[in-house]
C-alpha cells in the first residue's frame, strides 16, 4: 500500500481516538459522545461510499441501520443468540436487505433510485409498527437488549472503555474495507462510469453489477454498526428512523467532504460535538443545522477534506493530482 | 449585417473554433461548408447565444451579440434553425408555431406571420393539430423552418437543412429557403457539402477543424478544382 494523504489522515484520526480516553475516560459523558461519533462515522462513511463515490442516490441508509439494530435486538431478546453473533446477523440482514432493495431499484436511473429508496425508508417505520406480532415491539420499541459478554465480564453502562474500544475496532475495520474498496477495480469502475458512462460500458463495465455489490457492502457495514448501537443504547424504537438522524448523517458527509475519504469521519465527530454544544438553543439548533447544510453545499462543496486537499503540508509531500487522489494505488507500474 | 471577428469557442478543454472571422451582408445568402464535427454547428450556436464564446466579437448591425443571452438575441431577429430540429414533441404543429412567436418583437404580428408560413408550407396547415412527435422527417424539417420564420427573423442561421431528407424533399427545402431569402432575410446556411446550395449562395466559406480555410464568391470556388475535390466531394 502506497502511503498517501488518505492513509495518513485516517491513521492519524484512529490514533487520536485511541489515545483520547487517557484524558477523558473519567468523563463518561464525553466518552459517550465519542462512542456516538464513531457510530455515526461508520454510518456516514458507508453512505458516502454510495453517494459520493458510487453516485448511487440511495436514501435508505438509515433504514439499513435500523434493520441491523432490529435484527440483533429481536434475535438476542427472542432467540437468545449471543450479541456477538448479533453483530454478524445485523450485517448480514442489512446486506440482504440492500440486495433486495437494490435488485428492483438499481436498474433504474439515478433519480428513480433516490425516490424509490426514500419511499422504502419511509415504509420501514410503519412496517415495524404493524409488525408487532412478529416481535418488533411495535411503537414502544425493544427493551432491554442484552449487552456483550467477554468470558465472565459483562459490558455495562458504568464502564464505557470496553464499548469504546470495541467500537473503535469496528470503525477501523469499516474504514479499512472502505479504503480498499475505493481503490479497488470496483472503485475504478465507478470513477469510469462517472467520467463517461458510454465509454465505460463499451469497455465491459456493468453498472448494475457494480452498483449492487457496493450497495450490499455499504448496507452490511451500516447494519453492523446499527447492531452495535442497539446493544450499546439498550433500547431501540421506530423513532430512530426519524428525520433528524437521516439529515445529520448527510450533514456529516457534506461537512467532511463527499467522496473525500475519510472526510465523513471528521464530519461525524465535528457535528456530533457541535450538536451537543448547541443543545441549549433547543429547536433553533436544528434550524441552524439546516442553514449550515445549505451554506456548506453552496460555499464549500468539497467539505473540510476538500479544504485540506488544497493546503500544501510539507509532511504530506507534494500535492496529489486529481487522478492520484481518486485511485492512488492502481497504477502499480508507474 | 452580421460581422464575426476573431471568434474562439471552447468545449471544456477542446477548442472548437479558432480565431474565426466571417461576414454576412444584408440580404445575402452565405453558405458555410465543411466536414462533420469541424465546428460549423458550433459557430451557428455561438452566434445565436446557445454557446458562450470565449473571446472575439459578433456584431449584428453594430450591436455586440457575444455575451448576450439567447432570448435577447432572438428578440433582435437573429434566429437559429437547428440541424436536430429541437421541436416540442408533445405540442401540436400549431402550438410549435405559436411558440416560434414567443419573443416580444414577433408577437404583435403573429397572425400575419402565421398566414405567411402556412402559405409557403401548406402541408403544415393540414397537420396543424398533430403532435410534432408524429411528423415524418420532411414534415418536421418544414415545421422547424416554419417555427424559425415565426420568430420574425432578420437573420437566419440554418444548420444542415437537408440532413436525412430524400433528394426530392431536399430540393423542395432549398427552394423554400431561397423564397425566404428573397423576402429580405439574410441567411447563413451550413451544409456538409452541396452544389445546389453553392449555386444559390452569394458567398462561400469553407471550414476545417475550426478554421476558415477558404472564402470567396461562389463562382471562384466552383472554378477551383482542388476545393471541389476536397469539399464538394467531386471533381
Amino acid at each position, binding site marked *: 500500500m502506497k502511503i498517501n494523504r488518505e492513509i495518513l489522515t485516517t491513521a492519524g484520526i484512529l490514533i487520536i481516538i485511541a489515545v483520547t480516553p487517557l484524558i477523558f475516560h473519567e468523563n463518561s459523558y464525553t466518552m459517550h459522545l465519542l462512542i456516538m461519533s464513531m457510530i455515526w462515522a461508520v454510518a456516514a462513511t458507508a453512505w458516502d461510499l454510495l453517494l459520493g463515490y458510487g453516485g448511487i442516490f440511495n436514501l435508505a441508509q438509515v433504514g439499513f441501520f435500523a434493520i441491523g439494530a432490529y435484527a440483533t435486538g429481536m434475535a438476542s431478546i427472542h432467540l437468545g443468540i449471543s450479541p456477538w453473533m448479533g453483530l454478524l446477523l445485523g450485517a448480514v440482514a442489512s446486506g440482504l436487505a440492500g440486495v433486495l432493495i437494490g435488485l428492483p431499484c438499481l436498474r433504474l436511473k439515478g433519480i428513480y433510485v433516490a425516490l424509490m429508496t426514500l419511499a422504502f425508508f419511509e415504509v420501514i417505520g410503519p412496517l415495524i409498527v404493524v409488525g408487532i406480532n412478529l416481535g418488533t415491539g411495535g411503537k414502544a420499541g425493544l427493551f432491554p437488549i442484552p449487552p456483550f459478554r467477554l468470558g465472565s465480564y459483562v459490558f455495562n453502562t458504568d464502564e464505557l472503555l470496553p464499548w469504546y474500544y470495541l467500537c473503535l475496532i469496528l470503525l477501523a475495520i469499516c474504514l479499512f474495507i472502505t479504503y480498499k474498496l475505493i481503490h479497488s*477495480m470496483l472503485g*475504478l*469502475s465507478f*470513477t*469510469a462510469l*462517472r*467520467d*463517461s458512462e*458510454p*465509454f*465505460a*460500458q*463499451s*469497455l*465491459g*463495465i*456493468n453498472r448494475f453489477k457494480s452498483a449492487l455489490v457496493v450497495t450490499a457492502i455499504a448496507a452490511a457495514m451500516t447494519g453492523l454498526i446499527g447492531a452495535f448501537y442497539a446493544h450499546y443504547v439498550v433500547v431501540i424504537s421506530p423513532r430512530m428512523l426519524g428525520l433528524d438522524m437521516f439529515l445529520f448523517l448527510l450533514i456529516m458527509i457534506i461537512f467532511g467532504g463527499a467522496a473525500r475519504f475519510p472526510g465523513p469521519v471528521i464530519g461525524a465527530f465535528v457535528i456530533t460535538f457541535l450538536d451537543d454544544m448547541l443543545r441549549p438553543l433547543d429547536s433553533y439548533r436544528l434550524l441552524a443545522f439546516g442553514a449550515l447544510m445549505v451554506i456548506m453545499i453552496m460555499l464549500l462543496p468539497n467539505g473540510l477534506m476538500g479544504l485540506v486537499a488544497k493546503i500544501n503540508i510539507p509532511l504530506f509531500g507534494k500535492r496529489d*493530482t*486529481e*487522478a492520484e487522489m*481518486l*485511485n492512488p494505488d*492502481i*497504477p502499480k*507500474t*508507474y | 449585417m452580421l460581422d464575426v471577428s476573431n471568434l474562439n469557442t471552447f468545449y471544456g*478543454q*477542446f477548442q472548437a473554433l479558432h480565431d474565426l472571422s466571417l461576414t454576412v451582408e444584408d440580404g445575402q445568402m452565405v453558405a458555410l461548408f465543411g*466536414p*462533420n*464535427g*469541424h465546428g460549423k454547428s458550433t459557430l451557428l450556436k455561438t452566434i445565436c447565444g446557445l454557446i458562450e464564446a470565449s473571446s472575439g466579437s459578433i456584431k449584428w448591425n453594430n450591436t455586440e451579440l457575444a455575451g448576450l443571452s439567447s432570448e435577447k438575441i432572438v428578440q433582435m431577429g437573429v434566429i437559429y434553425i437547428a440541424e436536430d430540429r429541437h421541436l416540442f*414533441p408533445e405540442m401540436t404543429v400549431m402550438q410549435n408555431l405559436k411558440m416560434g412567436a414567443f419573443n416580444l418583437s414577433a408577437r404583435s404580428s403573429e397572425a400575419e406571420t402565421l398566414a405567411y408560413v402556412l402559405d409557403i408550407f401548406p402541408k403544415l396547415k393540414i397537420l396543424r393539430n398533430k403532435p410534432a*412527435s*408524429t*411528423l*415524418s*422527417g420532411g414534415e*418536421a424539417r418544414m415545421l422547424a423552418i416554419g417555427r424559425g420564420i415565426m420568430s420574425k427573423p432578420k437573420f437566419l442561421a440554418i444548420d*444542415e437543412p437537408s*440532413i*436525412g431528407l*430524400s*433528394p426530392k424533399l431536399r430540393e423542395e427545402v432549398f427552394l423554400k429557403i431561397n423564397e425566404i431569402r428573397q423576402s429580405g432575410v439574410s441567411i447563413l446556411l451550413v451544409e*456538409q*457539402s*452541396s*452544389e445546389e446550395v453553392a449555386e444559390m449562395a452569394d458567398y462561400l466559406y469553407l471550414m476545417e*477543424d475550426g478554421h476558415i480555410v477558404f472564402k470567396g464568391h461562389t463562382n471562384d470556388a466552383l472554378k477551383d478544382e482542388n476545393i471541389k475535390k476536397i469539399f*464538394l*466531394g*467531386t*471533381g
Partner: protein
Amino acid sequence: MILELKNVTKTFGKFAAVSDLNFSVNEGEIFGIAGPNGAGKTTLFNIISGFYRATGNIVFDNRKISHLGPDKINILGIARTFQIPLLFDSMTIYQNILVGSHFGGQGKSEVENRINEALSFFGLQELRAAAVANLKLLDKKLTMAAAAFATRPKLLLLDEPVAGLNPVEAELFVGLVKKLNREHGVTIIMIEHLMNILTEMSDRMMILNNGQKLIVGSPETVINDPETIECYLGNSHA
C-alpha cells in the same frame, strides 16, 4: 462470417434511423461504411455495440447478440471507439487502458500484459502517467483505441477515427489500424467520411443513405456505382 445483420430496423418515433438493414462482415476484413450526414452510420454502431435496442437479428461469432447490453457485447469480443473522444477524464492514460483490460477481457490474469501491449502498440508508453484531460486530439483518439484494444476484441468498430486529425496524424492512425488488422487479426468496421482513405483501406465497403443500404462491394464497384454518385458524391460528378 463474423457478424451478420438481418432485417435490422431502429426507429425514433416515426423516424427510421436505420431501416431493414441486411449485411455481413467476414472474419479478418476491413469493412468500410460511408454515407452522408444523418444516414444512420453512428446509429448502426450504437445498435451493434448494444447501446440501442433495434428490431431484427444480429449474430456475432455464431451468437445472437441483439438482446445484450453494451458491457456483455464487449466481453463477447466487440469493442468500439466514439466519434468525439470519450475518455475517463479524471484518470491517466494507463488507468483508461486498465479499465478496458480489466473489465473487457476474458480472464483477469493477463491484465498487466495487455495494458503494456496496448501502450506499446499505440506508442503511448511515455505518456502512460499523463492525465487524459489535457491531451491533444491524436493522443485522445489513440488512448480510446488502446483501451478498446486492451479488451482483446475480435471485432473493432471505429467511428470516424481520423476526423479532426491533420494528414500526418491521420496517416499514422490509419497505419496502426491496418497493422491491428494484419498482425492481430482484428476484424474492423470503420465509418469514415474521407472517401480516399476509406477506399484505400477497405476490403469491402457499404454506402448508407437515409438508414438504408445503397450498395455493398469492393471499393471499385462502390465508387463507380451510379446510385452512390448520385446520392453521396454529388450529382455533378456524373
